């Protein structure tokens, strides 16, 4: 049925594609999370002038497709002459940078909402106790709110990480040779769509299970105190 010979001979292409996919994923997740934590603190703030701008950012990025965001950054920004003449142009003319930038912004928006939701859901008694102990707002966040909120974000964040893994497949549309790019290459070379895309699907499934396991271990390590007792 399936042409196994072609599948095996094109494996190196898939492995190098998997490296590209993982690079994109980890850069996006790392940058997205790093930016999301302080922004989530602002988003959870009761002061509208702090929370509203962040809300606007997450509203726009969660309300539009990742493909549009990627196209605006990769194709759209080239419309502006001042950008093409600025020192930033080498960055924005590279598909690599545009993918990482678009993916980071996108995952950042979703992560902000996850973490801000977890901050808001903190039991009010914990905050009162910390205040009664005389903690400053900064200490309160550092010792009480953030450690607990980040832990409680883990289950939703694992979903976001998997969504991002799948989102990186869009990089193939702007010419990057990620896993999906490798599959499209194999398909156009041999015209064997089943072999090409089923192999890629297998790789993605393995990566998804790898992420699921990783987050499962993380939850075991950091969320034990919330686990159901047998």
């Amino acid at each position, binding site marked *: 049925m399936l042409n196994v010979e072609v599948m095996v001979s094109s494996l190196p292409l898939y492995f190098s594609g998997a490296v590209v996919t993982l690079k994109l994923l980890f850069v996006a997740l790392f940058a997205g999370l790093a930016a999301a934590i302080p922004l989530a603190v602002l988003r959870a703030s009761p002061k509208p002038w702090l929370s509203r701008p962040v809300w606007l950012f997450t509203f726009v990025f969660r309300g539009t497709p990742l493909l549009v965001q990627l196209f605006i950054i990769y194709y759209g920004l080239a*419309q502006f002459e001042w950008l093409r003449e600025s020192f930033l142009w080498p960055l924005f003319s590279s598909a690599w940078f545009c993918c990482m930038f678009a993916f980071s912004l996108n995952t950042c928006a979703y992560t902000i909402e996850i973490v801000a939701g977890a901050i808001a859901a903190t039991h009010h008694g914990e905050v009162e106790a910390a205040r009664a102990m005389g903690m400053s707002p900064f200490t309160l966040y550092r010792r009480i709110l953030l450690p607990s909120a980040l832990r409680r974000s883990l289950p939703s964040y694992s979903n976001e990480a998997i969504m991002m893994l799948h989102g990186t497949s869009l990089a193939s549309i702007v010419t990057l040779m990620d896993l999906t790019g490798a599959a499209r290459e194999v398909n156009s070379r041999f015209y064997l769509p089943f072999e090409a895309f089923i192999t890629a699907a297998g790789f*993605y499934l393995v990566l998804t299970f790898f992420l699921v396991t990783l987050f499962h271990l993380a939850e075991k390590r950091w969320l034990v105190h919330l686990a159901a007792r047998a």
Partner: protein
Amino acid sequence: MLHAFLPSILGGAVVTVTVALSSLLIAVLLGLLGAAMKLSKSRTAKALATVYTTVIRGVPDLVLMLLIFYGGQLTINELAPKFGYNDYVDINPFIAGVWTIGFIFGAYLTETFRGALLAIPAGQREAAIAYGMSSRQVFMRITFPQMVRFALPGFSNNWLVLVKSTALVSVIGLSDMMNRAGMAAGATHEPFTFYMTAAAIYLVITTISVLTLKALERRYSMGIKVASL
């Protein structure tokens, strides 16, 4: 330049919404079927549904879409001569897109519906049977209205992701909003203007969806007491 292409892009928005609604219909039917299979006593049905939801949710939409589009094209063209049809058959990207998206989101809705069905206390169904209701009546009067309430939050999420996924049908050549924005961008050398327009229209579609679904949630939660803090 925008006004010259706006009618075309708005026409594309209609295509996008049509694709989204058509695939939602398929997804809801597959989701109900999948949830019924997962909750059934048959082991084969359970296993089949588990493979479906696991594989679909573990693979990117784009890969599945390319697989179904190119794979379907190949299969149809290999099968067509056997039925005495010798011309090359082009798969309609609308049908390929709608089926693929429907098939993908059927897997997500399976989980949403399964959770909603499990959230209904078994005692209610037993009580309904004790009253002498037929299984159809139990479903229409007891299970279904409550399932809608429990499923709505998850369903809203699934729908919003689905709408955004429809942007991918432009990759397989359907003349949806993204595709037309791309054409206009190419013709005018103003890609920013047109992709921003597309983004704004998507934002309008998702905002209307959120408001509508919130209203539905209120409608189906009528008479439910919530704790006031």
